[in-house]
């Protein structure tokens, strides 16, 4: 399937970071080849330097980063020795690239067709009319609905998946020998991701390109990779065929990464009679309105449409859905950061949906939240101990006592009491998430809502935080409402799963039922879209 001579050959590449960075080299002595007709996946967690070599290939290294050793051979010449002008002649023509953020990767002021035509213009190909025709053909090829309309559209009129298709059309416009895809599906929903992966695989096979695919997600690797290169701290940890690396990882780090991926093995439900419900949500509705003007009609988005479910004491309920499904709104309504339009939210007999003002403030300690973004969830100006103690203090606990509690909580989440006097910026993402958990626990809440609490973390860290949550659940018999877009994470930690789409509950049941015998088409679609699932099924 692969030709003997590689299209791209990276030899002992070392890239130096500017002084003052957290390490000296972005990548060190990295060597790999990408051959015609293969997809090489470069995998690594954040900070592994996985994108850097690709930037060197494109001649798009960030300012201050420079190559100090090695070579990058493409078509017999060392790309590192090219002048900017020579490099430019390769970009777009013989090497195409797509990026992570489809929402910002297109010029917001230019029509899609013009942006594609620019690729031809940059390399002096075809004339005006012909450029448009070819752009149209490309849009058709990448499967954009109504390409004749899309060509005249501005980027903001397209969805994220469609924009990524436009990016792919641009990258492939001049039929490059090498395509570099830098986390091209990371910002997309799981079903869109599946479609884009399909498209890339399809185009690659049809055109026989060499593809360098950069990702952090082993599921994606299992979907597309011919060969895999695992990176850590700027060095290659393991390099081999997809089968070797995924099935028989030789290096501990690769093994740890693969093990950290939440598996499809679903823990058994704890048996026993259902205790009485702690939280009962009945017919919850929430509509977001953009306010219209005098002549402008108001726009409405139904974020929650007749949502009902219940959560028992000590139970973990998972809310699963793609972006726009209303899952986050549901969580925000339960903690009363949003006010539902109608319906009731009863927590052990108290209807939270009806409370306002001071009455609400006094009940707030009963439901707490763990937030998504470890960098935004702590006030940069407050010491960690104070951040945790704020809650008890606002509820009348004396400062000294609240600070003592904070120390105990920090011990509990595995950070140690010394953390109280430090500022958030001294901690890593995973550690901050532990602080966030400690803060949520500080008020002894009856219910904790975790909103995408592990989504922003690298997979190995994610596993640790999930482990901590599991441990705390047992120890403190927590009741948890766990909101996530990641079905595997949900499978691992939840007793009950609720699948949401367009503000409605599509399916709910025990984790086993939902995963092994989904009754709704949408649930099946979501499950099928999980990257790497086929591979795992084969392994099992």
């Amino acid at each position, binding site marked *: 399937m692969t030709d003997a001579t590689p299209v791209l050959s990276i030899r002992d590449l070392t890239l130096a970071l500017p002084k003052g960075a957290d390490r000296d080299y972005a990548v060190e002595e990295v060597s790999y080849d990408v051959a015609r007709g293969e997809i090489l996946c470069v995998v690594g967690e954040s900070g592994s330097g996985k994108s850097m070599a690709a930037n060197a290939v*494109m001649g*798009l290294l960030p300012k201050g980063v420079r190559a100090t050793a090695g070579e990058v051979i493409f078509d017999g010449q060392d790309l590192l020795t090219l002048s900017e002008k020579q490099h*430019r*002649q*390769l*970009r*777009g*023509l013989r090497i*195409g*690239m797509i*990026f992570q*953020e489809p929402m*910002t*990767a*297109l*010029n*917001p*002021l*230019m029509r899609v067709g013009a942006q594609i035509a*620019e*690729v031809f*213009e*940059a*390399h002096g190909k075809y004339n005006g009319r012909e450029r448009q025709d070819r752009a149209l053909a490309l849009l058709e090829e990448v499967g954009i609905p109504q390409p004749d309309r899309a060509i005249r559209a*501005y980027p*903001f*009129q397209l969805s994220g998946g469609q924009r990524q298709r436009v*990016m792919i059309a*641009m*990258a492939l416009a001049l039929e490059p020998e090498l395509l570099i895809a830098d986390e091209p599906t990371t910002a997309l929903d799981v079903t869109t991701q599946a479609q884009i992966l399909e498209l890339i695989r399809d185009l690659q096979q049809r055109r026989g390109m060499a593809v360098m695919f950069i990702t952090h997600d082993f599921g994606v690797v299992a979907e597309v990779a011919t060969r895999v290169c695992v990176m850590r701290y700027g060095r290659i940890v393991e390099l081999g065929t997809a089968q070797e690396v995924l099935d028989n990882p030789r290096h501990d780090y690769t093994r740890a990464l693969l093990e950290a991926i939440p598996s499809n093995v679903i823990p058994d439900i704890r048996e026993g009679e259902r205790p009485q419900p702690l939280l009962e949500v009945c017919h919850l509705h929430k509509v977001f309105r*953009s306010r219209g*003007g*005098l*002549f*402008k009609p108001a*726009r409405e988005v139904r974020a929650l449409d007749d949502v009902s479910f219940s959560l028992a004491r000590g139970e973990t309920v998972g809310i699963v859905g793609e972006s726009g499904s209303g899952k986050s709104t549901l969580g925000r309504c339960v903690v009363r950061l949003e006010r539902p339009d109608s319906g009731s939210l009863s927590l052990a007999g108290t209807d939270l949906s009806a409370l306002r003002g001071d009455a609400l403030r006094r009940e707030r300690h009963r439901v707490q939240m763990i937030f998504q973004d470890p960098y935004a969830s702590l006030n940069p100006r407050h010491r960690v101990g104070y951040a945790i103690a704020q809650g008890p203090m606002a509820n009348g606990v004396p400062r000294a006592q609240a600070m003592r509690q904070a120390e105990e909580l920090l011990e509990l989440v595995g950070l140690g009491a010394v953390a109280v006097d430090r500022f958030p910026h001294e901690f890593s993402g995973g550690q901050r998430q532990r602080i966030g958990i400690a803060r949520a626990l500080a008020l002894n809440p009856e219910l904790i809502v975790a909103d995408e609490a592990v989504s922003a973390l690298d997979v190995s860290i994610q596993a640790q935080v999930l482990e901590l949550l599991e441990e705390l659940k047992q120890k403190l018999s927590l009741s948890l409402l766990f909101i996530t877009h990641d079905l595997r994470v949900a499978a691992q930690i939840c007793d009950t799963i609720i699948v949401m789409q367009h503000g409605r509950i599509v399916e709910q049941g025990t984790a086993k039922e939902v995963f092994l015998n989904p009754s709704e088409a949408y649930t099946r679609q979501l499950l099928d879209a999980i990257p790497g699932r086929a591979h795992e099924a084969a392994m099992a």
Partner: protein
Amino acid sequence: MLYARLIVMRLLKAVVVLFLIIIFNFILIQLAPGDPAAILAGEAGATDEEFLRQLRERFGLDQPLYVQLWRYVSGIAMLDFGWSYRQGMPVLDLILARLPATLLLTGTAFVLSLGLGILAGSMAAARVKKPSGSLIMALALIFYATPLFWVALMSVVLFSVYLDWLPAYGMYTVGAGHSGLAYVLDVAKHLVLPATTLALFFMAIYTRMTRASMLEASQQDYVKTARAKGLSPRVIQRRHILRNALLPIITLAGLQAGQMVGGAILTETVFAWPGIGRLMFEALQQRDYNLLLGIFFFSAALVIVFNIITDLVYRLADPRIKEGS
């Protein structure tokens, strides 16, 4: 259709704002120490009992406040800004006679400052960290920090007193009786100093803003995409960076309109340019507050018109605004 609706909306808003300014003027007159009639008449008119009586009657100063307010508002609604005792003319006529000169001066200065500012700003953005780029920014900072009236005075000293290149005062040579092209050239010659001085300050603002905005835009993902296409730096700079960077400049230009009026007052005062800024200075000196308030109202109206125009331009430039939202 969309534009028509927008213009109607903006005009309605403008009417509200202008109405508020009238009320504001009215409150000012009430709050001012002393007899409102005397204030309206100014010091010069204070001695003339007949004029004061006339004023009291016109504004109903012996009537309850709401009647006074009603008379004042309805007067201005009928474009009756009252009488300037000192100049012996209706305020409206005075303002209208001086308006073209101000429009010529501010219009020229606006075009000059925007054009040169964007040019200098993009040059500075392309030369970050280079001496030439730093020099542009240093000059911009100095012009930004220099009092406008002082630049005006110093340019008079330099260019008309010492070098004798350009006329320092007025809008045309008095008594020369030029007509046709000669007249245009004469006015243009008189326009050079005031327009350049007025433009310098605003040019500094646009230069700084353009540079910052372009540096910001050049960090965006779409610029990386453009580079990945193999486009030349020149095309990227012009088509991708500058175009996006201009959007905030349009907004800024709208906000600067009010400043431009302030600048015109100072420049016209120094260069004896016969516009409404100079008229305002004269009104100040003669304590002709009725005229002063009239000019104030009029300058606010000018700014509002200009804001509506920049709003429309922004909508033309940014496709995202046309579609709903």
